[in-house]
Each structure stands twice: as C-alpha cells, then as structure tokens.
C-alpha cells in the first residue's frame, strides 16, 4: 500500500522497523554506470600519457561508454560520478590518471618496488550530462615499451552516478 502522508502520528526513531515489502522512491539508481577492461595487453610507450583501451564491457547501463573508438565515458545524466581506473605493469613505475574533457584531473603513481605493480585511482567528478566525458590514462618512464596487463582484469576503468 502506498503511503502518501502521515497524520497525527509520530515515529519513534529509536524503534525497530522490519520491512517486508518494497520501499520505492528512496535512494538513487546509481546509473549511468559501467565497467570495462582490456581484452588483451596494451603496449604503452615510454614517457607518454596513453589512453587506456578498455574494450570489453562487464556492463554499461546506458551505453554511455565508448568501448571501440574513443574509450571514453560520456554520461547522459548530469550529476556527480565516482570514477575509478587501474593499470598494471611488471618491474616498472606506473602512473594512472583520470581525465575530464581531455584534461588530467587526478593522478597517482607507484615506484617500481615490486615485480607486479598494480595502481588504482578513484575520484568524484561532476558531469553536465551531455558533452562532458571521462577517460583513463597510464604513463611510465622505463625508456622502452611496457605492457599494462589484461589478465584477471588487471587493467580496467569504471564509474557510476553518485547523485544528481
């Protein structure tokens, strides 16, 4: 039964409420959302910010992620988005960034202290729901080509709407 108003009553916030039905109209749907990863290792040339080509989608709720040409997320709902990305290189320092409209907004790095170097980044950014887009990039300084690995979804990019 839909409740449209509460009259002459009060709710004791210290009471326990056991819902057995469905509460609708509350919370957020958190879409658009997507998660994509590499289907095969991607070569990264030295000293060059290189866009991740995450071409395999786990899901893409509103088809807002381009997984074949520009590898970018262009959300069609205005709001604040939680975005995350990860790169993974062997025996190499690694930088990972998330950019908005072609400008790097958030970056992180890890030195080559481990043979297996995975680095993740996350950030919350606003989007206008039409032209704003987000991309993920990686960078290293090894002086030669290094791969960011595809195995076990080690290189990925994702995001979802936090709130409008």
């Amino acid at each position: 039964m839909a409740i449209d108003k509460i009259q002459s009553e009060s709710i004791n916030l210290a009471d326990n409420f056991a819902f057995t039905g469905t509460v609708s109209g509350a919370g957020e749907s958190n879409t658009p959302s997507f998660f994509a990863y590499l289907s095969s290792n991607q070569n990264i040339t030295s000293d060059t910010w290189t866009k991740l080509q995450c071409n395999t989608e786990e899901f893409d709720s509103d088809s807002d992620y381009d997984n074949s040409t520009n590898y970018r997320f262009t959300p069609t709902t205005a709001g604040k988005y939680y975005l995350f990305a990860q790169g993974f290189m062997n025996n190499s320092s690694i930088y990972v960034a998330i950019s908005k409209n072609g400008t790097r907004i958030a970056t992180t790095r890890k030195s080559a202290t481990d043979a297996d170097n995975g680095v993740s980044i996350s950030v919350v950014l606003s989007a206008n729901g039409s032209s704003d887009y987000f991309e993920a990039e990686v960078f290293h300084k090894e002086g030669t080509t290094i791969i960011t690995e595809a195995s076990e979804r080690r290189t990925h990019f994702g995001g979802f709407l936090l709130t409008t």
Partner: protein
Amino acid sequence: MAQLSNKIKEYCKANGVSNVDFLNDVKLQDDSNGQGAYIAEWNLDIAQPTDAQLSAQESAADTEEANNVVRSTRRTAYGDIGEQLDEIYKDIDSWKARIKSIKDANPKS
C-alpha cells in the same frame, strides 16, 4: 622506429639539455587512435623540434632504447634491493660476482 620520447631526449642532449622531465618539461600524449604519440606541450627553453630534427635522432635513440631494454633486464635479474642488501651483508664478493655475471650476460650497445 625509436620512441618519440627517446628521440626528444637525444635532440635535447644535442642542444644542451641533459635531462627532460616528461611530466612537466615536455608532455607527450597517445590518444590510442592509431596515430601514435605526439607532443602535447613543450615547456623547455630550446625550440620544439621539427619532424626532420627528430628523424635525425633516430639512430641514437634506437641505441638508447636498446640500452633501456638491457637496463630493465639487468634490474629484474638483480632482484629485490632488500634481498641484495642481505646478500651483501653475508658475502659481498659473492654478490659482486653475481652482479658482474648479469652485466656481462646483458651488455649495453
């Protein structure tokens, strides 16, 4: 073909700049659209090189790139720094011999 960053390093060396910071001095970008890397930002005092000036550095950059592969191979073979310190503490001569054998097996150009 040598990587753009290595050709830029060689061009800078030839013009009196011994060190290039590719996070600040020169920013290279690859949009993963099949066009390869390009110079997105040039903040050094010396002039940005032309395509011809970069092509002239091809051979030197190839050598540097080959040496970078050797450096990477050596680094992997050297192993973890902590383990090496332990190795040095226990028997420094044995460690030196092992490092030398790795260098000898992976010579630079």
